C-alpha cells in the first residue's frame, strides 16, 4: 500500500512541485474528469427520483424531500419549512397545492388546515437514494428475461464466432492451396463494404431462413467477421510450421493439430478477439432492433430503447438500466484488459 501511494504521488521536483508536475497532474486530472464524469453523473442520476431528474438547475447529489405519515392520510405528506409570513419557523406538511396557495397542516395537529403562500415555504430535503428505480426494473419490467437474452446472444455468438474464425484463420495461414490469397482477399475485401449497405439483403435472407424474431437470427449472421479472421491469421502465421510438422510426425490428425497445437498457441489472439466480440455483441443495437420484434426476445439494448417513448421518457428507469447494462461489460474489461494490451501488441492488430 505504501508503495502504491509513493508511486502515485511521485514528483519530479524533490520536496516541492516542479512545473512539469503541475502540468502532468493537471493533464491527468483533466483526463480522469473527462472519462469519468459522464459515468459518475450516470451513476448518481440513476438514484434520483423522476422529479429530481427534471429539476432545473440540476444537482449532482440525489436528494429527496422529506415526508411524514400523518393520521387520516393514505400517502406520506411532504414536509416544508416556513421561512416567512404567519407561520414562520414552523415545519408543516402539505396536503395539496392550489395555484399559489398550499394547504398545509401541522403534523401533530392534522385537523387544522392552514393556507400558506407557496413563496413562504421551503422544501426540507435530505440525501436519499431512489432504489426503486432499480427494484422496479425487476418488478414491473422483465429485466431478467432481457438480461438472459443478451447473455445468451453474447456468449453463443462469441463462441461460434471464435470457432469459425479460428478455423478459417488456420486454413488461411497454414495450408497451401490454390486460391488461398483470393479467399483472403475476399475476406478482407468485405471490410470495405459498410454494414448498412447489406442490412436489407441480410434481413431478407434471415427472414427466408425463418430466423426473423429469433435469437438465432441475431447470432448466425455475425458468426464470421473479417476482422477476426485477419487478426487470428496474422497471429497464426507466427507459429512455426515445424511444430505442425512435428505434430504430423506424431500421428496427430489435422483436427487434433488445430485443437491441441494451434488453439492453445493462439490463445492470446483468441482472448483479444473474445473480448472484442463480447463487447460488440453486448453493445450491438441496430441488428437486434431489425431482427427482433416481440418483447420477449428483446435484448437489454432494445429494452433500454423501449423506455424512450415518443411522448415521454422514463428517465429514472432508463438510467438505472443503463447502469446495469454497463456493469457486465465493465467487469469483462477489468478482468481481461491485460490480455487486450499484450494480445494486440503481439498480433499487431488494431
Amino acid at each position, binding site marked *: 500500500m505504501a508503495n502504491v501511494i509513493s508511486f502515485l504521488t511521485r514528483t519530479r521536483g524533490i520536496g516541492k512541485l516542479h512545473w512539469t508536475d503541475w502540468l502532468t497532474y493537471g493533464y491527468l486530472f483533466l483526463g480522469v474528469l473527462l472519462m469519468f464524469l459522464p459515468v459518475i453523473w450516470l451513476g448518481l442520476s440513476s438514484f434520483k427520483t423522476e422529479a429530481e431528474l427534471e429539476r432545473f438547475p440540476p444537482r449532482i447529489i440525489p436528494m429527496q424531500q422529506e415526508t411524514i405519515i400523518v393520521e387520516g392520510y393514505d400517502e406520506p405528506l411532504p414536509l416544508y419549512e416556513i421561512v416567512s409570513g404567519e407561520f414562520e419557523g414552523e415545519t408543516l406538511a402539505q396536503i395539496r397545492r392550489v395555484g399559489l396557495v398550499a394547504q398545509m397542516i401541522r403534523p401533530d395537529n392534522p385537523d387544522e388546515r392552514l393556507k400558506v403562500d407557496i413563496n413562504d415555504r421551503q422544501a426540507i430535503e435530505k440525501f436519499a437514494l431512489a432504489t426503486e428505480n432499480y427494484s422496479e426494473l425487476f418488478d414491473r419490467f422483465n429485466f431478467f428475461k432481457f438480461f438472459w437474452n443478451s447473455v445468451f446472444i453474447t456468449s453463443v455468438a462469441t463462441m461460434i464466432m471464435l470457432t469459425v474464425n479460428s478455423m478459417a484463420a488456420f486454413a488461411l495461414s497454414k495450408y497451401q492451396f490454390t486460391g488461398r490469397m483470393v479467399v483472403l482477399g475476399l475476406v478482407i475485401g468485405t471490410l470495405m463494404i459498410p454494414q448498412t449497405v447489406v442490412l436489407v439483403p441480410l434481413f431478407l435472407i434471415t427472414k427466408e431462413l425463418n430466423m426473423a424474431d429469433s435469437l438465432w437470427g441475431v447470432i448466425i449472421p455475425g458468426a464470421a467477421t473479417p476482422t477476426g479472421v485477419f487478426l487470428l491469421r496474422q497471429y497464426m502465421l507466427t507459429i*512455426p510450421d*515445424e*511444430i505442425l*510438422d*512435428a*505434430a*504430423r*510426425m*506424431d*500421428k*496427430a*490428425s489435422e483436427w*487434433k493439430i488445430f485443437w*491441441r*497445437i494451434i488453439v*492453445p*498457441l493462439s490463445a492470446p489472439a483468441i482472448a483479444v478477439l473474445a473480448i472484442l466480440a463480447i463487447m460488440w455483441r453486448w453493445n450491438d443495437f441496430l441488428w437486434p432492433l431489425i431482427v427482433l420484434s416481440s418483447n420477449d426476445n428483446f435484448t437489454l439494448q432494445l429494452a433500454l430503447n423501449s423506455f424512450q417513448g415518443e411522448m415521454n421518457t422514463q428517465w429514472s428507469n432508463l438510467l438505472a438500466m443503463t447502469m446495469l447494462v454497463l456493469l457486465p461489460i465493465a467487469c469483462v474489461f477489468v478482468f481481461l484488459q491485460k490480455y487486450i494490451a499484450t494480445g494486440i501488441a503481439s498480433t499487431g492488430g488494431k
Partner: protein
Amino acid sequence: MSQLVLRDVRKSYGDLDVIKGVDLDIAKGDFCVFVGPSGCGKSTLLRMISGLEKITSGTISIEGRVVNDLPAADRGLAMVFQSYALYPHMSVRQNLSFGLENMRLPKAEIDAKIDQVAKMLQIEQLLDRKPKALSGGQRQRVAIGRAVVREPTVFLFDEPLSNLDAELRVDMRGEIASLHRRLGNTMIYVTHDQVEAMTMADKIAVLRLGEVEQFGAPLEIYNNPCNIFVAGFIGSPRMNFVEGRVDSIADGTLTVLTTTDERITMAADRFDTNVGEGVTVGIRPNHMSVTDLATADFKVNVRDTEQLGGESFVYGKTGQGAAITVHLSGQTRFEPGSEIGAKLDSEHIHLFATGTGLSLRKGAV
C-alpha cells in the same frame, strides 16, 4: 537387405527442379548422413522421405513397401527438427507423450516408455518443465527423446545440432552416435557440416544442386572422391587445387605442367588420362611438405600462418593465384610475405579432368 530405397526420386516446384533424380539404398542399422552446401536440397530430400513433402516422381520404399502415398504419420519414422519444434505450451512429459497418445497406447505403457527414455537421455528431472525453461542442449535432448519414445524404424535428423554452441555440439554428436550404437536403428542425418558427417556416419551421401554426387563410407569418400566438388567439400581444411595439363607419360611417370610452368610428377598407373589433357591436381594440406625452392613441386607465397602449438597451418597462394593451405605438424617459423617450396606426397595426389571435374583415378566411375 536395404531398409530404405529411393529410386529416381524427383521434386520440382513449378519449373524449378529441386531434387533431380536421387537413387539411394540405405541398409538397416546404417547411420547415413546427407551432407552438402546450403540449398543443395538435402533437407527437402529428408522431408520427402519423412512424408511431410510430396514427391513429384519416383518411388520411396521402406522395408520393401512403397510409401509414396502414405502420410507422414504412418511411415513409422520419427524426425528431430532443426528448431527442435517442441510444443511450447506442453510440459516435457506431455511433449513426449503426445505422439504415444495419438497412437492410442494405454496410459501405463506410455508412462513406462517415457520414464525409460527420460532415464536414458538424463532428462528425468526436467519432465515437468515447459520447453522455454530449458537450455538449448536440454531442448535438444527432449527433441531426441520425443523421437526415441515412439520406437521408429528410421530416425530422421534435420541439422539437429546447428543451434548449439561448439562445445555442446561435440557432446551431442557423441551422444547421438552412442544412441545409434545402443538402439541400432537406421538413422538419416542431414548436416552442412562435413566434420559431423565424417565423425558420425557409416555412409555419407554428398549432395549438390539436388543430385547425389557420391555415396559411400566416410573414408572411401575422403580417399577417393569421385569429382572435384566432393574432393573440395569433404575434408577440413579443404583440398588444394592446382590447374595444369598432362605433359608427358613415360617410364611409369606422369608429369603435369602447371599453368605457371612448374612440373608435378606422380605414378602413371594410378590414373586414366592422356598427354595434353587439361587436369586439376588435388592434394590435401596434410599430404604436403615444405622444402627448398630448388626441389619444390611449386612455389607458395605465404600470406598467413596459424600456430596451434602441436600443429600449424600455412596459408598462401600459388603463382596461379590459387589458395593453398599446408598442414605441418609442430610449429613453424615462416613469415607472411616469404616464399616457400611445396613438395607433394605423390602417393596422395588426385587428378581431375578440368572440364567435367570428374576424377581421373583408374577405376573411378
